């Protein structure tokens, strides 16, 4: 069977399982949604009953679960308790800043991660290796909200090099760094260890015996082979990229899904939270699918294996 089809076949149940978890957790949260809906205002039983009906809460859980899955598949995730707008619309409106930020973080993380990884890995146990790895460790262990605040303080407030608010490319720099630093740290460490491993392989010795320059040995013979573990990491850490974006948006007071999610959680706006999580899981699974395909591009052995299945 085609590898692509097979993967898709696995994606569908994964999505449904993820959505089920979302549904179950949000529906066992204590507190009557009707109260939340009414914003704590006192109301007669009649009104409450009406609201309940409007929300579809009078139906049995199983039925609600069924229609949730069906609607989720159609992309219809109900209306927000608070704004009474369709949640899909709210998400669409707030989507772009977050996508920009995630891509910014991703680019920063991959670029500097690989750069530092290669810088360290090509000369293991040297001073430059040690320094690079200490920086990478800082990137991993420092919380991104703190980094964000520091960046604002140093480059925005004190030095005044980059604007902290506003739109456009420049204002994206600091938030991207703050999102991507964690990523960069992990990438750097993994790229380094994987590169050190590859450089000890027999085929690198063969390349050297052919008189290939150091530069080409890294570029043509090592990097591609070394990139498989970092790409895997990429897949695993997309989730962290999303949470990173959420926190960063708060720190930089940027609009976006992060802000939306935070507001939704604070207001216990269940349909909105639910919709956001549903979307994020879908994106996460989709991105992992892309990563899966990238393996095949990097490694012909994997590509062939898939063809033969």
């Amino acid at each position: 069977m085609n590898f692509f089809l097979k993967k898709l076949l696995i994606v569908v149940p994964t999505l449904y399982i993820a959505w089920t978890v979302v549904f179950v957790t949000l529906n066992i949260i204590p507190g009557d949604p009707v109260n939340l809906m009414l914003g704590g205002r006192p109301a007669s039983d009649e009104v409450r009953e009406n609201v309940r009906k409007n929300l579809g809460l009078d139906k049995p859980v199983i039925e609600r679960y069924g229609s949730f899955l069906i609607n989720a598949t159609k992309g219809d995730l109900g209306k927000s308790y608070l704004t009474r707008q369709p949640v899909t619309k709210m998400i669409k409106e707030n989507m772009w800043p977050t996508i920009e930020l995630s891509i910014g973080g991703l680019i920063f993380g991959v670029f500097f991660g690989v750069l530092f990884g290669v810088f360290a890995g090509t000369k293991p146990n040297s001073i430059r290796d040690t320094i690079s790895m200490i920086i990478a460790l800082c990137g991993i262990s420092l919380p991104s909200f703190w980094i964000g605040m520091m960046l604002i303080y140093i480059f925005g407030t004190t030095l005044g090099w980059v604007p902290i608010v506003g739109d456009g490319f420049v204002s994206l720099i600091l938030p991207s760094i703050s999102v991507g630093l964690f990523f960069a740290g992990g990438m750097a460490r993994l790229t380094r260890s994987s590169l050190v491993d590859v450089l000890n392989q027999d085929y690198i010795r063969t390349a050297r015996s052919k008189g290939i320059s150091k530069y080409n040995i890294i570029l043509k013979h090592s990097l591609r082979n070394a990139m498989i573990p970092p790409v895997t990491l990429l897949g695993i850490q997309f989730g962290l990229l999303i949470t990173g974006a959420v926190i960063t948006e708060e720190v930089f007071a940027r609009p976006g899904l992060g802000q939306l999610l935070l507001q939704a959680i604070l207001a216990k706006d269940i349909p909105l939270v639910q919709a956001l999580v549903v979307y994020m899981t879908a994106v996460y699974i989709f991105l992992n699918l892309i990563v899966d395909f990238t393996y095949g591009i990097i490694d012909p052995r994997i590509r062939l294996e898939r063809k033969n299945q």
Partner: protein
Amino acid sequence: MDNLLEVSNLNTEFKSDYGSKQALHNISFKIKEGEVLALVGESGSGKTVTSLSIMGLLPNNASIKEGEIKLFNTNKDEIDILTLSDEKHNEIRGNDISMVFQEPMTCLNPTMTVGEQILEVIIRHKKISKINAKKEMIGLLELVEIPDPIQRSNEYPHQLSGGMRQRIMIAIALACNPKLIIADEPTSALDVTIQAQLLELLKKLKNSIVTKTSILFITHDLGIVKELADRVIVMYQGKIVEEGNVLDVFERPKHSYTNNLIQSLPEFKIEKRNKENIQNITKSDNEKLILSIKNIYKEFPVDKGIFKKSTETVKAVQNVSFDVKENKILGLVGESGSGKSTLGKTIIKLIEPTSGQINFKNQDISGFNKKKMQNIRQKMQMIFQDPFASLNPRKNILDTLMEPILVHNLMKKNEAKEYISQIINDVGLPSESLNRFPHEFSGGQRQRIGIARALVLKPEFIIADEPVSALDVSIQAQVLNLLETLKETYNLTMIFISHDLSVIEYFCDEVAVMYLGHIVEMAPVNKLFTNPKHSYTKALLSAVPKVKTKKTNKILIKGDIPSPINPPSGCVFRTRCPNPGIECTGGDIKMGLVEVEPNHWVDKCCVKLD
């Protein structure tokens, strides 16, 4: 002849946490233009370090303390290699001096097509256009006799067999018409049949290369030296102990180490034994059967992933029947992938046969479950090839040997201790070894421990799977001697699995030749080696490079062993047979052994042709 390369007074050292260790001591030698110089010596003697020193590819913890390596150019300029910068050295590597490495499986980049890997070196050193370079690349593939060169050049290393990958390595080495090719054990990881193909190729190249390319051929195999080299250097513990013309060295070795090396070759030992007539013929009256297997089949389902039910099978063992007489050694020989190890494990029931009967001491054990096998296991033991992998690294030797005794309730713990130290002495190790751990032993010593572990349960029957293949020739001889004495003292019967025909010839009483799951010929050793009947046996015997006999016409086996998932119909060997009959090519004859002379069994399709 002019000198091409002069190595003088080379001292190379390794640094480690425990201090430094000198790997090469005052190595000096010369390579002349157009000659094949062989470098022999046991593992760790410094052969590879010598070649890497010349290539400038030593690992980071190594350094050259002293010495000079001079390369003479076409216009007789001398280049002092050791003083070159890395950039300048890169001009020479792959261009003037190139190298072929031992491990064909790992030496090529898995993410580049083999064509690209050849192209790369051409473009690097010859200033020619990509189109012309491509033409040269295809030409090189033809030169090293790769079938369908255009198609193959677009494939990745893992799509090629070991033999083909090594041909690709040779193509890379030849690409820029180098003055010197260093080949470090280029055929050691391959089957004899594939080795013979490659040696034939190298010989052809050697005779056809007009530009007087020299070859430094590193090997531990003296047979190859005899076949290929003009001169030979013998290394021992980082020093050169002997140097001279191949014929002189073999006939009149000056150094005792060289002499020992030659004397420990199985072919010499066989000759010696035949002279002294050690073989005691009267002894073979004892014809009691200990093992008799009938129509054994073993097929493994092919794993196709979770979505597909597998219908294909790997046909590892096909209709094998034979008897083993008490106190005899039956050798099992064949190329890798022929099913030797599977057959061995099936007999001892480490894996279940698909069908067939295994009679051990007049008891059919093929249907026995694990519990019933417990008692049988005690009498049947197995010795494996890789002694390190089969020993638990966290257990000392005493515990390792104690365990089976306690499991089988053979004796009490304090009794066992004495018994174990007796056995460890029998395998030639001091009793103190019992308190030590596997990593503290050399390869040969570990194999002795493996043997001791097989012996503790006082078995009557042992299956030894390539027990000496990982060992150096001289150590091999010691371990074989040990097995021979033990066979007498413990009254053992053995199945001895090996791909090395000379070891089999020296060590076994009877031989069964296996190919793609079938036994194609079986006979007492001297019959089989002097009068082989099956085409495969003949080709296999002729493939072995030997020191003694001067072989003129080799029977070469074409290509690689076919997949055991879809073996050829009819005679399984017909796709590679050097001289198939007309009846064979149709693929509809049935295989099966017939007795052509007393105790000499040959596959019946091949008999008809004689």
